[in-house]
């Protein structure tokens, strides 16, 4: 925001649009559901651990969907799991965002042809906001995905939509 490096005298007022203020607050603390599916989950763990440190973007894993803003679908979604993912998504409070991480969650990945038990893309059951390609994506790619999501949140509006 560039405010903190300026010095203020007392009693200042900052005027901002409600949209901007709320969006700024929301995009800086995207709490993700602590939820790993497959190989990509290990990269997601590496992203939150030392060296990459996902915390600095305000991403903290929460262990219950009811406190989460975003869910990172990190890995292959099988048919058996798809119904559970849908339920987890429905348990999250609005507004909620989905990052589809890795080829499997995007489109079935290497299992697209003969995978009789693999859902070919998680967007067949829940709406996806950001797709991160890679098998598995590097932590940097996941950062990029998060930055894209932040961009999306920044441009949202709370104004009532006219039909």
């Amino acid at each position, binding site marked *: 925001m560039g405010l903190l490096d300026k010095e203020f005298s007392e009693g200042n007022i900052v005027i901002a649009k409600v949209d901007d203020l709320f969006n700024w607050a929301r995009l800086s603390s995207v709490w993700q*559901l602590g939820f790993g*599916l*497959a190989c990509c989950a290990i990269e997601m763990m*590496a992203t939150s651990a*030392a060296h990459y440190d996902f915390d600095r973007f305000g991403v903290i894993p929460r262990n219950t969907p009811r406190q989460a803003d975003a869910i990172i679908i990190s890995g292959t979604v099988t048919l058996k799991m798809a119904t*559970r993912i849908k339920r987890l998504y429905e348990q999250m409070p609005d507004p909620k965002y989905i990052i589809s991480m890795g080829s499997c969650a995007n489109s079935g990945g*290497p299992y697209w042809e*003969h995978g009789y038990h693999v859902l070919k893309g998680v967007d067949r059951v829940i709406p996806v906001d950001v797709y991160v390609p890679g098998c598995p994506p590097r932590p940097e790619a996941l950062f990029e995905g998060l930055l894209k999501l932040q961009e999306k949140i920044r441009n949202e509006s709370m104004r009532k939509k006219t039909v």
Partner: protein
Amino acid sequence: MALKTERMVLNMGPQHPSTHGVLRLELEIEGELVTKVTPHIGYLHRCFEKHCEAMMYNQVVPYTDRMDYLASMYNNWGYALAVEKLCGIQVPERVEYIRVIMGELQRIASHAVAVGTFGLDIGAWTPFLYLFRDRERILTLFEMTCGARLLYNYIWVGGLSHDIHPDFVRMTREFLESFKPTVTEVNNLLSYNKIFIERTANIGVLPLDTAINYGCTGPTLRGSGLAYDLRRDDTYSIYNKFDFNVITGQGLQGTLGDTWDRYYVRVQEMLESVKIIEQALDQLPAEGDVQSAIPKRIKPPKGHVYTRVENPRGELGYFIISDGNTNPFRVKVRPPSFVHLEIMDDLTRGHLISDIMAILGSIDIVLGEVDR
């Protein structure tokens, strides 16, 4: 007066922060005591065996990566060994050395995750960060060798996808030197921590005869006190050239075969792997083409083969049936995690709910391998 409680069924998972993936445990509990645990698996069944039947022999290698995604090198290696045995391919010595180095680095990386997340499950956050810091350095070594951090597709049938980087030997030695203090750190922070011992000693005791009857291998079996290691007892590759100890549980903090023993076997095995890598780096032949033995077209004779390697979790076996075509007729994997998950019911009976996480962490399962 004994407290009377009703029996209750509780679901843990498939989304649960401590189940190490998409595992669902159906618990029957009386108060806090667990009377029965039924694991439900298959949430990550990715049809590996069906894919093998549709692919050519060399195309299967990337799929093996994705089974045990914490020890991909070993999956590649086991598969490559099986096909090499089926076709009668002899690989160059330099390739064998590089495979051993990569395999043992992978073992350290895998055990680092196992030990780190085990601490995490029990509530210790710091060892996880320390071990992941060092794991990143191993991943850097892998990355400069084959370009991938997690799923390598590195060990091919008959050779390797790339030769090692000129700086690899130097950087590996530097890493090994810096890794030894980490193990001491982990011991100080976790292994001999009073709270940790209280949570793990005498919990989930696995008697040796039960372990053998269940087909347990690897650290789970060695934690129960039997020195059985395929690297020594059914030597493959060039492991007979190295001097290393087979670590077994001693029952130092409680009963032999408890959760602490299985955990501590892993911690010590990381140091044994360091020893093996140091010897392999010393003996590594300077010259040699790592791709000279890779066949242009793999078409093994009719037959079947079962080979096994000592994966960080236990015996990883590949059973391949060939009908003389360029595709395998059937590939069946023996995943150690699948076998180990079966003992959950035995281990957890009579313990508290919070102990389940400790026990599950100590058998170190990877769901990608359980479900394939």
